[in-house]
């Protein structure tokens, strides 16, 4: 599962399409536990990235950096800022390379998770996108088939956290009422990852 420049471009297309498809679902999920704009955030962000596609440099680190910038300019929503933070973390590590090696995936995602945690100051285990990334990083560390493992990890994360209360972001104020409900950010990450690995 080496990711080349072209691989990145086609992953962007798949993710952008998935976000258009999931627009209402993500707004609704965020509407139940937040302000209902996560579908807006994700479509806007992916459209902004798609628009820069032709200008993305061969340096895959620089390319991810530009994706992060495009996403962050498209809105100020928490999720957008967190995603951009994660992308920047990976971008820094990858700078100077023209592809991503499969065995580096786990480390890149763990690094992103940590930077995003610094940014959002939420604890791991708090039922946020951080937990999805944490599951991802751990699954990718050992898995043979990275794509299958990734798709399974985001599903498992959702399942494992569904019955816990939210403790970060706007969902925090719902406290125990959030038990049984999926975190919108984890749902978005599920869609993103499955689209990225073409398992949707």
């Amino acid at each position, binding site marked *: 599962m080496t990711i080349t420049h072209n691989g990145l471009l086609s992953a962007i297309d798949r993710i952008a399409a998935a976000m258009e498809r999931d627009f209402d679902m993500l707004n609704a999920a965020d509407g139940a536990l937040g*302000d*209902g*704009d996560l579908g*807006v955030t994700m479509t806007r962000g992916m459209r902004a990235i798609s628009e820069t596609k032709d200008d993305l440099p061969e340096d895959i680190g620089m390319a991810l950096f530009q994706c992060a*910038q495009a996403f*962050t*300019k*498209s*809105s*100020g*929503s*928490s999720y*957008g*800022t*967190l995603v*951009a*933070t994660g992308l920047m973390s990976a971008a820094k590590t990858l700078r100077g390379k023209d592809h991503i090696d499969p065995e580096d995936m786990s480390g890149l995602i763990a690094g992103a998770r940590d930077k995003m945690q610094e*940014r*959002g*100051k939420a604890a791991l285990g708090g039922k946020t996108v951080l937990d999805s990334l944490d599951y991802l990083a751990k699954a990718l560390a050992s898995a043979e088939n990275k794509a299958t493992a990734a798709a399974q990890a985001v599903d498992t994360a959702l399942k494992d956290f569904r019955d816990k209360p939210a403790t*970060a*972001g*706007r969902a925090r*104020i*719902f406290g125990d009422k959030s038990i049984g409900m999926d975190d919108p950010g984890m749902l978005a990450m599920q869609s993103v990852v499955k689209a990225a690995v073409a398992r949707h």
Partner: protein
Amino acid sequence: MKKILNSPDAYVDEMLAGLIAAHSEHYQMYGDSGKVVARAKPGKPGKVGIVTGGGSGHLPVFTGYVGQGLLDACAVGDVFASPSAEQMADAIRVADNGAGVLRLYGNYGGDVMNFDMAGELVEFEDITCSTVLLADDVASAPPDEAEKRRGVAGMVYAFKIAGAAAEEERDLAAVTAVAQKAADACRSIGAALSPCTVPQAGKPTFEIADDEMEMGMGIHGEPGVWRGKLQSADEIANEMMDRLLADMPLANGDRVSVLVNSLGATPPEELYILYRIVKERLDATGARIIMPLVGRYATSMEMSGVSFTLCKLDDELERLLRAPCDCAFWRVG
């Protein structure tokens, strides 16, 4: 509640265009990121810059308080949505007069992440930033988790006091310290009677029965401490004062300013009815009321309801509160 608008997507941009058309002596747009407003006449070289930001829909907060003796620049997002880090970085850039910039804003997750990120962006341009968060809403977390509280109308005091300190050409550390002192001296609580409508959502932020109110509700409709029958003005005012004074007791000889604020639709007539009790309760503590404010200082569009803010003052804070300031919504001195 009905709204006068064109397209929901254009609400904030058209609002800013009209604001600047009406008050070009106070405000100007800055940069390419959009929705960044700066003073029409920049601060003097060497003056510490003060920026704020947050979602739209709270006029005069945030943009309105850009002005002399107040803020230097402001980034706003869509209604009730954080501006982007890029906009905030632009606000910091235009606010910088070479002496560094204080980020002074309300404690909301998205805003915090974005202002932090904006700070990292401008670090590369050698702009030093400091941060003071407003977290004055006593209904949003208990005292032992005070750092989790949301920022509400108390920011008006922080803007005023920090702005006056910056105008005195204190350095960044000093302006930051007094802004923190002001933020620490503020306690607020709100009560909502009816919701507002976010243009892009097209429906009210919450539902509430015709004979109900909610004590402690947040300015975006965040759940409060109780919902129940609409009480009388005096009962509402007394409970709000009880909650504020429990969180920050006042003693004989203390000085305090108080802001009785409409969340939007509630008319000044009703604020004055409430003020009778506010004054009575403060007088009963033996504290002296300094420069009481009654009006619409921090709103949620057409939400109906009120908030009270106490700001406990020492010599320094009182002097800075009384110092001159000027913007399209507020003038002192």
